[in-house]
């Protein structure tokens, strides 16, 4: 039996606890306000930091975009200036065109060879193996030749330009040129972009031709067809409409590769690391743009 005294004590304790509980509630109301303020402050801070970061990204993006537009405008302006650096232009044509020949020869030949071997079984199944030369020639001239050659050139030429101009920038050679009364844009960029614009279509046509020869070799592994017959069959399927859009788009591929390579190199930062970055991003962007230009070109050709 609990004594009355204990009972009173217990009741007092419970009451005390209730009061404490009530007080606790009172306090609890107070704490969330402070906490809410703190949470709001932290969130506001985070939000403002994020806003600043995003604004910076947007700012950089827009600055880059404006830079590209200005670069192209300056390129066009310098192209039509009185002093065209013809000697440097031909030197660049030689280094872009002639020095890429071995690489493009191998690529072109393998392209035709592989395409023939891969598509032969499907055609044989329908008894349509006589269509093989025509099919390979059309796909080479319309699509495979221009795109694969342009991608190879993006790898070789755009990266070369990015690295060369980038290292010239790092070692103050571009500034030295500017100081000796030579416009570096005119001497370095205009010549390179035009050389790429004129040489890459030639390389593409060359790759197409070697691709058809490669295809003839491929056709002769399992069949027997003379070179003359193969070529006459191939060309009987090719019309002007196959060649013209491909040639036109290859000029665009050339200028895109030249412009991207030069832009990335010319605008490289300071320090040797930026040379690597310039070369790398030149290849990536040039390859991507080649594919995008191709997509647009195909849409336009399709409408014809």
């Amino acid at each position, binding site marked *: 039996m609990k004594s009355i005294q204990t009972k009173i004590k217990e009741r007092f304790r419970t009451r005390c606890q209730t009061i404490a509980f009530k007080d606790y509630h009172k306090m609890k109301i107070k704490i969330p306000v402070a906490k809410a303020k703190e949470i709001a402050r932290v969130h506001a801070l985070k939000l403002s930091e994020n806003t600043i970061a995003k604004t910076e990204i947007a700012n950089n993006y827009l600055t880059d975009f404006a830079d590209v537009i200005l670069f192209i405008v300056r390129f066009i302006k310098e192209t039509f200036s009185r002093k065209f650096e013809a000697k440097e232009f031909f030197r660049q044509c030689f280094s872009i065109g002639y020095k890429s020949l071995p690489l493009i020869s191998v690529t072109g030949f393998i392209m035709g060879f592989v395409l023939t071997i891969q598509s032969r079984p499907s055609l044989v199944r329908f008894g349509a193996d006589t269509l093989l030369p025509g099919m390979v020639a059309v796909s080479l001239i319309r699509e495979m030749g221009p795109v694969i050659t342009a991608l190879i050139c993006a790898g070789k030429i755009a990266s070369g330009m990015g690295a060369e101009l980038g290292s*010239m920038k790092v*070692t*103050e050679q571009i500034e*030295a*040129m*500017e100081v*000796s*009364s030579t416009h570096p844009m005119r001497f370095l960029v205009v010549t390179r972009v035009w050389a790429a614009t004129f040489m890459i279509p030639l390389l593409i046509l060359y790759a197409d031709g070697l691709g058809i020869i490669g295809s003839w070799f491929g056709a002769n592994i399992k069949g027997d067809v003379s070179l003359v017959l193969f070529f006459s069959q191939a060309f009987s399927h090719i019309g002007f409409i196959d060649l013209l859009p491909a040639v036109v788009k290859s000029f665009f591929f050339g200028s895109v590769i030249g412009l991207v390579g030069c832009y990335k190199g010319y605008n490289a930062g300071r320090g040797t690391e930026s040379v690597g970055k310039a070369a790398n991003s030149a290849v990536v962007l040039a390859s991507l743009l080649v594919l995008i230009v191709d997509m647009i070109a195909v849409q336009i050709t399709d409408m014809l």
Partner: protein
Amino acid sequence: MKLDETEFLLKEPAKKQTREAVIEISNLCKSFGNQEVLKNLSFTLYTGENLVVLGKSGSGKSVLIKCIVGLLRSDSGTIKVFNHDVTALTVNELGEIRQKIGFLFQSGALYDSMTVKENLEFPLRRIKAHLTQKEINAKIEEVLENVGLANALNKMPSQLSGGMRKRISLARTIVVDPMIILYDEPTTGLDPVTSDEISLLINDVQKKYKTSSIIITHDIECARTTADRLIMLQDGEVYAEGNIAEFEKSTDKVIKSFFK
């Protein structure tokens, strides 16, 4: 002793001449972002003198001479070169002024893809377009002999040592007969002997071609050999100005730290 003799021969005419200003810089300011590199910088370069600009790395010395040739645009202030304000010139006018100014880059900045001869021909063909091939060849031979590298004509820059690169670079600067030469740390990265040779070469060029020069350096030996007058930059401002003797005698802490 040879060094003193050269100095004696050189410095006398510079002092005797009437002090006509070729470059006048007043209140030049330049900042990159929040960082103020040059603050209200003012000084003058007179005809025929070698003005050495001393200063710690990052004190804005290179920025200063890049502003003079218009490679960097200043934020405010004026830079008068032969009484033309460089900051207000059009691209073509700036090109004309640049033809009178030679610039020796810190790294040499020789064109890697060209031979020494082509490197020297490059500015010559553009700035002095009227010259025939024979005259160009003669001029190139002359400057190469002046820098003591007549046999390097057909070498590529990658085949040259650091000192040779600096010499060829100097040859490329003087080949177009500039009236002002701006040297950006001409002796950096060279051994003491080659540094001395380059310093003496700078004096020879001043004597032979009657040029006025601004020599940016933090190499005291180079300053001792070449300077007619010195200015010291500190935090983007002119901290001290005077001749080498005055600098050597100075008890100022900052100046003393240079002339140990």
